[in-house]
């Protein structure tokens, strides 16, 4: 077997030293944030109170059993309403099947992802915590009409190329 000792070693060393001229790939995370995917499945669910009919399709679709839903008739105005809607985000694996299952577009994946908690009990989210609001951005997962409004995802393919052209 042929062997020119040192040839391959030098070739490799050339590759590594050349990296010094290129832009590093990394992002300085807390300061420098990239846009996530428009379809991001964040660590929460966003629930729209007005659209939900309490049909519990999401709870049936959830194979983790993370969604608890209790509906009752309100005797005062004789309306059928959702009494409890609770998601244990500790059990939730963010698969998005509940969102796909919802026939009334009342359930969305949230776009937030920094949701670490100190206690397991805090991971259970109730109706109020899940409600659709401004500080709770909704992801475009399975909802293309929502996805269009979100910022475009930062892609590494494009980011690094940009940086290289600047140099």
């Amino acid at each position: 077997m042929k062997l020119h000792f040192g040839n391959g070693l030098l070739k490799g060393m050339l590759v590594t030293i050349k990296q010094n001229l290129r832009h590093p790939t990394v992002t300085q995370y807390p300061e420098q944030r990239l846009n996530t995917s428009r379809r991001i499945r964040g660590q929460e669910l966003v629930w729209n109170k007005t659209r939900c009919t309490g049909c519990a399709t999401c709870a049936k679709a959830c194979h983790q059993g993370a969604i608890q839903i209790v509906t009752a008739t309100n005797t005062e105005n004789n309306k059928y309403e959702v009494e409890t809607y609770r998601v244990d985000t500790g059990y939730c694996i963010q698969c998005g099947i509940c969102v796909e299952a919802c026939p009334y577009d009342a359930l969305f994946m949230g776009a937030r992802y920094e949701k670490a908690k100190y206690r397991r009990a805090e991971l259970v989210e109730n109706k109020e915590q899940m409600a659709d609001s401004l500080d709770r951005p909704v992801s475009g997962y399975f909802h293309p009409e929502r996805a269009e409004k979100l910022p475009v995802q930062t892609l590494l393919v494009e980011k690094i190329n940009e940086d290289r052209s600047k140099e």
Partner: protein
Amino acid sequence: MALHTEPFILNIGPVHPSTHGVFRIRATLDGEVIVDIEPVFGYLHRGVEKLAEQRTYTGIIPLTDRMDYITSMSNNLAYVLAVEKLAKVKVPERAEYIRVIMAEMQRICNHLVAAGAFINDCGAFFTPFLYMFREREKLMDLFEMVSGQRLTYNYMRVGGVSQDLPAEFLPALRKFLKEMPAHIAEYERLINDNEIFLARSRMIGILPKELAINCGISGPVARASGVKWDLRKADPYGIYDRFEFDIPTGTVGDANDRYTVRIAEMKQSLRIIEQAVEKIPAGPVISDVPKVLHPPVGEAYGHLEGPKGELGFYLVSDGGIAPYRFHVRPPSLINLTALRQMLIGWKIQDAITIFGSIDITMGEVDR
């Protein structure tokens, strides 16, 4: 006077930098030489097969994500193929193309991890690993764009895929396809001719062809031993018969062959993706499948050429909403069958190299 020596038992793992998870090799050593090994599994056993028996056919897809977490997309596809075979579901044309693109992207993704980790096991201090992860990151961006997550995609559905590709996906993928060959060339320059790497990997851990077939070994490991067997050619599932690609094979079946086969397969995957991107038609991405599937009574074995080997799902249906029996043919586990024959006689350092060259994911071995 001969020195009195005793064999020495070393537990490599379950928590060890090079066992790719929580694998344990109970090695009997004579000095540095391995005399006997016993692989010990089960540290990541989660009972996927039992769990799946209580879930709907759609609900199992996220479980398959978590089996081999490096190749989630291929796992999804293999499972979905099995269910489609069982329930006789047709898949729209566009979905077939999307599936091919995704599966091949996943193959590149896996081979980048496998090759990088293998060189790391040879002792390189993370440089090839990080270079390869840089490109993997680009692919994961694309996966994230499509499915919303970076590792557990849950994208395939029975009868198609969950959502159509976003508009910005194909341009980004084309950009990636354009720059990837240069990156592969860079890896090759970095390590392929490196004498130390060759000395560590060439003619090490030879797996003979007959043994590979007899042990049921599949995927790049078998192909490196000269078994020209690729389910994409031998049993073309989906629309693989429409694409033109080669099956790279090795000659001797050593660790270096397994590495070079993976690099060559990445190039072939790029070729397939290029063809698929050219030809992808418009149209629906999922056929009309009921949300809760009731496949007819029967059984089906759906398999595909996963990045690690033949990944198959054997499903038995009793007509209910959940499979009666859900069995996985895990390539990672079965590729380890010949591990003992491959390791005996080599040194501990070689053991790590050979083990790394097989490329397993513990999530799939133990399930």
